[in-house]
């Protein structure tokens, strides 16, 4: 599940993940993403942090409180590179954090760290 209000980022992440053989669904805001997750819990969420309707922090809190959502790996993907805010996202339950811009190798590496891709 890719959640980002940027159509370009959704497309870029989708291409990287699909090239790895993963099936991808996406959403343009946290609320739409949360509804989709509650219907069918994904194996991975790539999550923007600053979004309209429901931001990444709101989504993450709701996901972790949802049945089956406690252990889903979440990689926050944001242009915010402030160390304090990165630490806060991890503290809030994100498993990893990617700073934009990024490339396929960086995302591969994060998935490998989470044991999703080798």
């Amino acid at each position: 599940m890719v959640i980002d209000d940027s159509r370009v980022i959704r497309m870029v992440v989708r291409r990287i993940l699909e090239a790895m053989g993963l099936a991808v669904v996406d959403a343009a805001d946290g609320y739409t993403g949360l509804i989709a997750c509650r219907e069918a819990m994904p194996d991975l969420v790539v999550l923007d942090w600053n979004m309209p309707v429901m931001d990444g922090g709101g989504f993450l809190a709701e996901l972790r409180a949802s049945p089956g959502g406690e252990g889903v790996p979440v990689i926050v993907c944001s242009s915010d590179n402030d160390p304090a805010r990165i630490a806060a996202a991890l503290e809030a339950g994100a498993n990893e954090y990617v700073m934009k811009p990024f490339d396929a190798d960086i995302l591969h590496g994060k998935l490998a760290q989470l044991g999703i891709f080798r």
Partner: protein
Amino acid sequence: MKPATYTALSDWLYARLGLSLGHDKAYLVESRVAPVLRRHGIASMDVLGAQLRRGLPEDVAREICGAMTANESAFFRDIRPYAHFARVALPALLRARAGTRRLRIWNAAAGGGQEAYSIAMLLHEARAALEGWAVEIVATDIGDEVLRRAREGVYTHFEIQRGLPARLMVRHFIRQEDRWQASPELRAAIRFGAFNLMHDPRPLGVFDAVFCRYALVQLEVASREAISGRIAQILAGDGFLYLGEGEVARPALFAPVPGEKGIFTHAPRVPGGVAPSLRP
């Protein structure tokens, strides 16, 4: 570059590094060496070739060696060797060294420093178990410029994200606009120095683990075997050798760790290892 210059440079690199270029790497050599020539005001590869015949200044020689052996790297490259070190090697060494409480790790071919900093971060994670221990990480490479960069520990936005978990990035690195520098504590945990793998490493002392990843792959078999042999002389009898995935240590001296790629211990019943009791 004239063919004679390329031949002279190839011969020089082989003698100095054991690096075997073949006949068709002129473009590679020029692209890597050009920045060194610019820094030292050397007008062209052919001028360098003439200087080679007269004897190159040592600082230029070391920079060329560094440029020719520099590799793309990443933090925790391949992950598995670091997982093995943290979960298998380190607990075993902690038990075996409980008497001396001394641990020495050599990162040969340190390159951009990512490997040495990865090891330092793993040891930081194990700091409770290492309380009161003398821990030493020695990181060596051949080129002054490579070492300067490694010692400085500054990485671009992209480099810092290659292999480094975000949790460790915010704990051990300080953001400076769009770059990230290793914290003073992390840098202080590593002793960087110049060393050529073609030389005798015994003056560096005995090590409990050696990381020499993706340095041998560029070399001819004879050079690889010679370096394996030298590493065997300074690796403790119960120590661990970490090479790159797909790299092989001299079979007469080292045995692969079952189920792992590029991780070795001393081969059983073959002399060459240094017993822990002989440590300086």
